[in-house]
């Protein structure tokens, strides 16, 4: 028992140590809030006969569920990878239960969200007694295991067969599933709604939760560090162009960026097959989430070369190259997500193109400022080269999603003003960081 308690303390330490006080509190709030919202969303469906009077429908809550699904799918891609390192585990004093937990995550830090499983169970219990408790627990299992599954599967797919074949295969499987469901008379939305109102749903949930756990366990293998470049790039003569080409190549070659691309295709397809989600919102929020992940890891793309690069280029060139690189990738992900949603019948949000561009820029700006002041060196020593601490990822994600909500809520002109102001503040802040690059020094 004392060993398990020590493991919980260790997990909390790894989960929270990287944040400064405000960011830490925010991270805890964001994780609990998101998971509780997710739990509520799914419980709303599971317990619809009891909660219909509240006026909350499954469709209303699905985007939240999709948001968490994306977050959980992305989280395993953020880890330090040290859970596979027996020396790191021994040095951290990890006990049996902690080792068991980290088997489902790529790092000690990733194991953190598992600590919030009891929160979901408590919400379930408070909402609907023991069926709610059981549903919450099973859903938490499902979420964590599905996140691990999707993260591992997409990373393995892109490494093994390349991003193009991976995209085509995944899109094909999901499209086929959606078509079969539709042909069975259980069209988009109907099948899920029908299933969740059946008494057997809880049993199915528990069984699939256990299966997902087993799958996650089996698939949790360390991803390869880098994707082998297919061909050598030509570096342009002009210094700024050279910088831009190198950064774009670095992002496009990362396993994380490629698996994020797969997630961007998967998410709208899954959500679309499960309910009446709006294509535009999917594109926006996938963009915001994916760009946040890219942004949070922005410094990592340079590795230890960041210090070298600071001596070779001006601060403003470096910042401009970062903003442009992240914006291009964020915009590309938005287009991919919207296109995949269009495949299953949703109209591409072409009329919202200016807002999409704004969201991409806002997301890039959010990624300019790290959410942690003094990350531990171990967070950057990942052989998966995917180092962002969870606190940093959640902080960046929150800023990114916050700006997205703002862009969507106000007229375009005000949106441009707001994003421009935010970008200016982020640039000034980022320049200060580059002048005193303690965070960059931690990369080395």
């Amino acid at each position, binding site marked *: 028992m004392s060993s398990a308690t020590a493991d919980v303390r260790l997990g909390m330490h790894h989960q929270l140590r990287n944040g400064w006080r405000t960011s830490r509190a925010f991270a805890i709030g964001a994780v609990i809030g998101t998971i509780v919202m997710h739990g509520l969303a799914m419980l709303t469906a599971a317990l619809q006969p009891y909660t219909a009077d509240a006026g909350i429908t499954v469709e209303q809550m699905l985007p939240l569920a999709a948001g968490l699904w994306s977050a959980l799918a992305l989280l395993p891609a953020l880890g330090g990878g040290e859970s596979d390192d027996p020396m790191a585990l021994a040095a951290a004093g990890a006990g049996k239960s902690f080792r068991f937990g980290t088997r489902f995550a790529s790092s000690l830090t990733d194991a953190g969200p598992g600590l919030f499983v009891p929160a979901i169970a408590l919400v379930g219990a408070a909402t609907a007694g023991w069926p709610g408790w059981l549903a919450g627990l099973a859903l938490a299992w499902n979420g964590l295991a599905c996140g691990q599954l999707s993260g591992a599967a997409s990373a393995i797919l892109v490494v093994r067969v390349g991003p193009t074949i991976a995209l085509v295969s995944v899109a094909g499987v999901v499209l086929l599933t959606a078509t079969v469901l539709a042909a069975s008379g259980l069209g988009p939305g109907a099948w899920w709604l029908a299933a969740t109102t059946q008494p057997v749903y809880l049993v199915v949930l528990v069984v699939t939760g256990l299966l997902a756990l087993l799958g996650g366990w089996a698939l949790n293998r360390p991803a390869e560090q*880098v994707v082998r470049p297919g061909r*050598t790039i030509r570096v342009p003569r*002009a210094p700024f162009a050279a910088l831009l080409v190198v950064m774009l190549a670095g992002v496009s070659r990362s396993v994380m960026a490629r698996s994020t691309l797969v997630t961007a295709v998967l998410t709208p397809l899954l959500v679309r097959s499960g309910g009446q989600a709006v294509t535009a919102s999917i594109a926006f929020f996938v963009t915001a989430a994916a760009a946040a992940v890219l942004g949070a890891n922005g410094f990592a793309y340079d590795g230890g070369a960041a*210090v*070298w690069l600071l001596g*070779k280029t*001006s601060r403003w060139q470096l910042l401009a190259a970062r903003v442009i690189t992240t914006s291009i990738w964020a915009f590309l992900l938005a287009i991919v997500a919207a296109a995949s949603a269009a495949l299953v019948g949703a109209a591409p949000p072409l009329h919202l193109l200016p807002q999409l561009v704004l969201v991409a820029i806002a997301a890039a700006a959010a990624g300019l400022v790290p959410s942690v002041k003094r990350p531990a060196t171990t967070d950057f020593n990942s052989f998966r080269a995917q180092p962002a601490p969870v606190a940093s990822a959640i902080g960046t994600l929150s800023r990114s999603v916050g700006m997205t909500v703002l862009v969507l809520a106000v007229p375009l002109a005000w949106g441009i003003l707001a994003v421009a102001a935010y970008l200016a503040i982020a640039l000034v802040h980022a320049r200060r960081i580059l002048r005193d690059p303690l965070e960059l020094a931690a990369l080395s």
Partner: protein
Amino acid sequence: MLDVRGLCRSYGDHVIVQDVSFTVAPGRMLALLGPNGCGKSTTLKILSGAIEASAGTYLVDGQPGGSDHARRATGYVPDTRGVFPRLTGGEHLELAARLHAAESWKGRAAELIDRLALEEVVDLPAGAYSHGQSRRLSMAMALVAAAPLLLVDEPFDGVDPDGVDTITELLVEARTAGAAVVLTTHLLDAAVIADDVAVFQHHHLAGPYPTGDLLREHGTLKAAWSRLANP
């Protein structure tokens, strides 16, 4: 080539470098010695333009440090792995040449790849390199554009004995070709190639002193280091 005057650097109340001054002429090599955490790497980071000084000035080839001219004139080997994990070795050298605005660099790059034993890994992403291979690649990046000022921070760290010999030869050749070289190292046997030696004493710099004078007075650089670092 390099003229440093009253350089200071602190993080909050924590002083790292205090009132450091020295000059390095073309064709000369200065070794900065001192215990861990005394400010050697911070000094080179400032001189490379990577971070800013809290006070003091430095000129590179007569131009203010941090200017475009100074950046292009400086080849820098940081004390870190110093590589982009997803770029190949060849791409690193091309990027370094472009950022230095070097015109004819391909022959030099091929020579450095050969001499630093990087042929087998030059087409692989640097994330797959060992620590020693990363250090060799960093060295090649600093030398590929024949910069007139070389700042070399712990170049022998993690490098095998043959590599230490090769890097020593390359530094001596660069000096002979007219480059000014500033070197930090804990390998005092390797530091004897320097013309001058300066030692950090609690974030202040003692020296520079001619290496020959120190060897005559103290017998070895280790003895000189012990005496000067702990007065």
